[in-house]
């Protein structure tokens, strides 16, 4: 693996809320153009890892290098300009805004208005149900539609790295399968890198290239998704099934 292949490198990352650290000495490497699944039980620190990467939680130690540049002291608002998009847990749709306003919000920072408009059109083509509900408020959408909206809004920014937190939460299996297929399609067609936090291990492993398992704020194993999926002993040891 060369330095050019790596889009995100985390070394000795420690972070948390208040005095108690949630993440402890986390090391993580994500290759560009791959889907990396972050797995683990509730409270393992998966969401905190994403929130620290996107700057919402300040690390107390360690280093985050994204696209070859350290991220220390980069404001949250700037990260999207550098190509990092974070779709938070619970989808983060602004319930009071319409579908169209939510999507436009994703590209407001962009100076290239023409390309932002093009990206918006592409998102509507990708998610047809959203095109039919442009004027509906976020709170009027189904769970699946909200997930599409959150994903679509992130894509309007044309990210290089997508941090995706629990996209399957509360969704029907058919919708989950559609979302996973979409992630694979985006990776293959645009070279998008995805760091996918999931409790639904089977779904995550069905689409991921790499997998890391977290427990009590630490990464306990990092391997290929194929290996974790196929090696029953390994799966049993780290994921309990």
């Amino acid at each position, binding site marked *: 693996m060369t330095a050019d292949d790596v889009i995100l490198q985390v070394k000795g990352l420690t972070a948390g809320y208040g005095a108690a650290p949630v993440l402890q000495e986390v090391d993580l490497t994500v290759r560009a153009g791959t889907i990396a699944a972050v797995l683990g039980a509730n409270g393992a620190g998966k969401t905190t890892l994403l929130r620290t990467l996107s700057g919402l939680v300040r690390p107390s130690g360690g280093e985050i290098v994204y696209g070859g540049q350290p991220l220390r002291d980069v404001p*949250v*608002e700037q990260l*999207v300009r550098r190509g990092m998009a974070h779709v938070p847990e619970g989808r*983060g749709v602004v319930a009071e*805004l319409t579908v169209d306003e939510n999507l436009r*919000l994703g590209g407001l920072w962009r100076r290239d208005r023409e390309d932002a408009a093009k990206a918006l059109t592409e998102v509507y083509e990708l998610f047809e149900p959203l095109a039919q509900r442009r004027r509906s*408020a976020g709170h009027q959408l189904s769970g699946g539609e909200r997930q599409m909206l959150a994903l679509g809004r992130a894509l309007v920014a044309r990210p290089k790295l997508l941090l995706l937190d629990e996209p399957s939460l509360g969704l029907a299996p058919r919708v989950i399968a559609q979302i996973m297929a979409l992630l694979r399609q985006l990776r293959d067609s645009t070279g998008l890198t995805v760091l996918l936090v999931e409790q639904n291990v089977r779904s995550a492993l069905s689409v991921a290239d790499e997998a890391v398992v977290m427990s009590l704020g630490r990464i306990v194993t990092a391997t290929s998704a194929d290996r974790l999926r196929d090696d029953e002993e390994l799966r049993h040891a780290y994921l309990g099934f």
Partner: protein
Amino acid sequence: MDRFVFLTFDGLSKGAVLAAFALALVLIWRAARIVNFAQGAMAVAAAYAGYSVTSATGSYWLGFAAALVGGLLIGVVVERAVMRFVDHSSPLSEVIVALGLVLVVQAVLGMVYGNEFLPAGTPFSRNALSVGDVPLLSRYDLFVFGAVLLVLLGLALLFTRTSVGLRMRASAFAPEVSRLLGVNVGGMLTLGWALASAVGALAALLVIPTELGLHPHAMDLVFVSAFTAAVVGGLDSPPGAVVGGLTVGLILSYVSGYLGSDVTPMAVLVLLLAVLLVRPGGLFSSTVARQA
């Protein structure tokens, strides 16, 4: 009947000003989840700035513009220098800081300008124009309606038709998500305070000449009525602030006209109590959206 018609128009005129002031409260509530108890004091400070300019230049309109600019600046300073540093984990600390600000602003104004009522002029006559034998609205009332309408339209356009308005709404509803989408939430918050403070200053400029005059406490009772209007309409809802303002204005006018002006403060408090008991979120609250 003539009296009822007169009181209705008078109430709508008062209500328009209350609507503007309630809107200022709603803007800050939506942006920062703070009931800005200092709004009245801030508005009076801006009105004093306008008074100084008018006194120095002899021009009402220069003073008017100075008060609005002063309102914007006071909003920026209060947000950047005070409210940004308040512990937001407890609503009580914000309330206490706002009340402390009221005391400081009123004391400073008293020291600088004195505690006597100062005359506040109007750009148009306050003599009511009559239709038939019924006195309805004065030219000044029409100016009040026009000014408030212009502000309402301007804010509606800002929030619904511009990218800054979209950023402001997103920052108010979902600050964390907005930051992730590249929105400068702190900047939007400052802008919200500045706009709200300028709208409050406008309301002060419009209402003070119809009361006893300019005084550090000139907006105290207006604040109570406008707060009631904002609660009636729902603190989350700009259209609610307008409807609430007009409703409270009409009630004040009818109660004052038929029962006497001594009863009006009580009428406002009874209305506030009734709304808080029956529909605490206000008539136009967006509870459904918030829970989604």
